[in-house]
């Protein structure tokens, strides 16, 4: 195994991890603040790619299509929260699972109806079509951008939660909802915002993944499983956990695929089993809830 192969693989793992982080951070946030197990999250990821596709067709610019996708899907997320999710706070987790899974199926069909069943390719931005040499190894420029953007998103999210007032309110909401409500904060708006933010993050992942993985109905279901694995091993509701878990799964998956393709998925589950045996609540679960 030579250096070039290792460098390529390390970048692959990082890039896969970053996309996974965008997806699982939203999932972790929604679980942490709202205590909702959101199966519809994969659908927001898919919607991100499709709205990005339409945005690209309308504006012709990837850099406009990305924020458009995030904002539109974020708004859809907030609406979904007001219309459906809020009825289920504190309800039986099974009811939540059924509702959000139902939403996932409905949105999947909706996408098929609006955009058709065929796979749709999001073109890679012209300027990023080539490769860039890192340590003498050529690597697709667009994928390097995904790594950079994922990193920036992680830092921004962290700053927002740790340093902003809204972030402080959200963190407070995670540990004690009654207290936040007692302080006169409108929980309804806060929850809609949180759900929308989570959906927007998923959409961001979806539209960024578009040029790599294309857009097609059912894409959300596929990534959802991995996102849940990340959230479980990171610790339910923990953003730090989502970040570390994403990288871990990215590494397990890419190296698994390259070294022992038959065992790639097994490697992912093996990581999960190992982590859960070591810490049943996940790496950053329970005692550190952000």
């Amino acid at each position: 195994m030579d250096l070039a192969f290792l460098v390529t693989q390390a970048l692959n793992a990082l890039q896969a991890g970053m996309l996974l982080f965008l997806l699982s951070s939203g999932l972790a946030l929604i679980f942490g603040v709202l205590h909702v197990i959101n199966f519809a999250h994969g659908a927001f990821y898919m919607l991100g790619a499709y709205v990005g596709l339409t945005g690209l067709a309308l504006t012709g610019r990837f850099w406009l299509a990305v924020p458009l996708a995030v904002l539109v899907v974020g708004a859809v997320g907030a609406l979904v929260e007001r219309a459906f999710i809020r009825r289920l706070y504190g309800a039986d987790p099974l009811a939540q699972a059924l509702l959000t899974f139902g939403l996932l199926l409905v949105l999947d069909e909706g996408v098929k109806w609006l955009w058709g069943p065929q796979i749709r390719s999001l073109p890679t931005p012209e300027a990023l079509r080539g490769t860039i040499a890192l340590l003498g190894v050529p690597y697709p420029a667009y994928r390097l951008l995904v790594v950079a953007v994922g990193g920036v998103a992680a830092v921004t999210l962290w700053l927002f939660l740790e340093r902003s007032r809204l972030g402080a309110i959200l963190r407070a909401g995670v540990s004690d909802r009654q207290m936040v409500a007692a302080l006169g904060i409108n929980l309804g708006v806060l929850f809609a915002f949180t759900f929308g933010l989570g959906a927007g993050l998923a959409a961001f992942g979806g539209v960024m993944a578009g040029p790599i993985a294309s857009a097609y109905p059912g894409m959300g279901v596929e990534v959802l499983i991995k996102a849940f694995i990340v959230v479980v091993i990171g610790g339910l509701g923990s953003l730090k956990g989502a970040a570390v878990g994403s990288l871990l799964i990215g590494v397990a998956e890419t190296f698994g695929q390259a070294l022992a393709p038959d065992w790639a998925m097994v490697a992912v589950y093996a990581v999960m089993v190992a982590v859960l045996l070591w810490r049943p609540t996940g790496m950053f679960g329970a005692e550190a809830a952000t």
Partner: protein
Amino acid sequence: MAGMSRRQVLRTGVAAGVSAAAGLAFPALLRAQGKPLKIGLLLPYSKVYAVLGESITNGMRVVFEAEGNRVAGRPVELLREDDEVSPPVGLRKLRKFLTSDQVDFVVGPVSSAVAAAIRDPIHQAKVILLNANAGDNALTRERCSPYIFRTSFSNWQTSYGLGAWAKQHIGGTAYLTGSDYAAGYQIVGAFREAFVAAGGTVVGESYVKLGSTDYAAIMAKIGAVGPALSFSFFAGSDAVHFVKQFAEFGLKGKVRLTGAGFLVSDDVLESQGDAAVGAVSTLHYTRTLQNPQNLEFRKRYQALTGKPPDVYAVQGYDTARVILEALRRTGGDTTDPERLSGVIRGIQFESPRGRFRFDPATHNAINDMYVMEVRRGDEGLANYVVSVVKELKDPGHCPNITA
């Protein structure tokens, strides 16, 4: 009498007359007349192969709509069930077709894994299965059945012809990749067989889970080995991802991209764009074929769906042609599976893909396999024929069929 030509009326009449003279099938024919012809489409309408299911269905509609949706006096009903590319789901939907719908024919599936799962119930129920895509070699070899016909291809057929050609025209070293299921191993295996026999060397081999979106790990391996060519079996969305990423990782231009034709077939080519240009593959159909049947088919398919046809559409079209022809020959009677099987075995006609006929020994279609290259030509981005492997017949043998 729109939709029913004079020739058809005559032919139905003659068939009825002959049956009446024989004095046997006539009551059955009377019963069959007017009773809907139910065709159970067991196809994927979702997931990785969704487009394939749609194309097959539309290809069939081209045939039946030209007949006014009546075949030998029977109104045609296409019943669709989504097999979700899953063997257990496929099996469940098949049971529904056999028990509650009581279909006359089953058409499908796309996935070899689903086909393997439904083979035994089909054989036991003695319902004619017209396999419009699934290429599993075993279905027309050791697991064949007198009731199973394949209008598409065997996995072996789709890649064997390319092996020697690639060695001769591209180079002597190959990296092989495929989807990690029966079809992947069979298609890659047939290429390997022919490539090695022609003196080539295989320098690496990887298989990827069906429905994967990221092939970066494989690109890293192909890049590290640097072979003359890469041969792949991927189809549907997998093919789009593989070909795009092959170009993204800078392999295009260094390593020649080749594969079974699904890798760059018409259904995925648009999404792949320039990444696919230069790829060499073999398949039994491309929309650029210039025979009159294809020109006519393209016009009708375009009118019906607003899109140009792909290989799956032709498989659907030929499948419907087989049904049509079989019913004309039996006068609309589908009650006797043995007779139906015998009739279907002898069917041949000119298809958009060239001459269509079954190998009576295996019930598999005998195909001309076209070696094609992706270019931007008069037809836009498309597969253009560079060579033909004539009348490639699967080398299998079926012990259960008495030819």
